[in-house]
């Protein structure tokens, strides 16, 4: 049985996007060599990825490009090589190793989890993550808490849920990474 992980940046008041749907705030904060080194120099491995349409399109527009290969070659290589599933009824993925999830989201993810293969990570894709969480399909949340209060927006959690903290790390810039098991 594959595990499904959600990796998401959220505000301190728990929103993955603001009331206007934006998330530029997720990049706010001071320059922090510690966080930058953690993000840029510590990546390895991967598993498979699951995206909603909007996050997928954002990723597809950057990681296959020469600019990505120039700026973050190891990450770009990993992203391009990874198998990617896309939850969408309106686009046809063209990125290498990307494919649409067949049929309805929840049943498709149940089938995916029941199949053989590596663990699957939902990157961003807040609306998809919220649906999967509400259906009890998420095994782990990795949340990057950005020190910004939005006062409103959209939340990952549409129903109450008890979580168990299994890892944590705080950065000088105020970002805190928390890992919870469900």
């Amino acid at each position, binding site marked *: 049985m594959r595990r499904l992980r959600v990796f998401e940046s959220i505000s301190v008041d728990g929103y993955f996007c603001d009331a206007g749907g934006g998330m530029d705030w997720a*990049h706010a904060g001071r320059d922090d060599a510690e966080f930058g080194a953690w993000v840029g120099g510590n990546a390895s491995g991967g598993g498979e990825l699951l995206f909603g349409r909007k996050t997928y399109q954002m990723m597809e527009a950057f990681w296959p490009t020469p600019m990505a290969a120039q700026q973050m070659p190891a990450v770009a290589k990993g992203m391009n090589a990874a198998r990617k599933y896309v939850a969408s009824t309106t686009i046809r993925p063209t990125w290498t190793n990307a494919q649409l999830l067949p049929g309805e989201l929840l049943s498709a993810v149940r089938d995916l989890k029941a199949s053989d293969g590596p663990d699957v990570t939902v990157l961003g894709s807040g609306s998809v993550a919220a649906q999967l969480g509400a259906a009890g399909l998420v095994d782990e949340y990795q949340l990057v808490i950005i020190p910004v209060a939005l006062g409103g927006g959209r939340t990952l959690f549409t129903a109450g849920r008890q979580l168990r903290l299994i890892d944590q790390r705080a950065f000088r810039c105020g970002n805190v990474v928390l890992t919870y098991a469900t």
Partner: protein
Amino acid sequence: MRLTFSQAAFLSMGGLVAIGCATPLPLVRLKPDAPDIVWVGGRASVQKETTGVRVAAAFEHQDGSNLAVRVEIENRTTDRLEVSPQEMTYSVCSAPAAASCAPSQRVIDPEQILTALDVAQSRGVAEAANSQALNGTLVLLSAVGDVASAARGRPTTGSATLVAASAMESDAAAQNSAQASIAVQQQVWSDQALRRNTLFPGQGTTGLVYLPINSKATYVWLQITVAGRLFPFHFVQVLTPVQPAWAEQPQGASEIR
């Protein structure tokens, strides 16, 4: 706690925003450091001529982590000339004195980029090549010397220059490669970049020359060599910090998911 590639990718996304807690890249512009600037379609251009070869250069736009400089070259000699990005170098400097300059490096070679795109998408892209050489409108030079007329065999008009300048604006708007798909990148590097061309007498070519941004530089030299003739262009680099959009307009940020 280690990140996977994908988690690092997600955290470093945001288009031109640097990793994690970083602020957006600054706007970078190049201003000619020369007394004889000619403005063409909003661009500050400088032209130089040596023994029958005319070269003009003007900063065009910032393309992610690169700067695009429009270069036009006209062959007024009686010989055929070879023009190649491999004969173009740049040097970044921290002060006007040459001693402050880093060693010259070649500008970005469009052929290498196209090869990388080719590999990335496992399909050919290189056929679109060099026909632009004879068709490109020499906007910078035509504004001051009817060069397009010589190159294309018909009179140059002011309106043609304006139309061409407008088209250049459209091209620039379309060239935000950081946000573009591979297909768009291929088109940009194939059609917009200055590539190797043979110029017969009376002909000219135009295209964009790309050099990586060095945010610590205060001056940039672009050295263009054509048939052994050296055309150095000196620019002042101007950086304008960009505040994160959320800090200025929390409700105006673009939706990404």
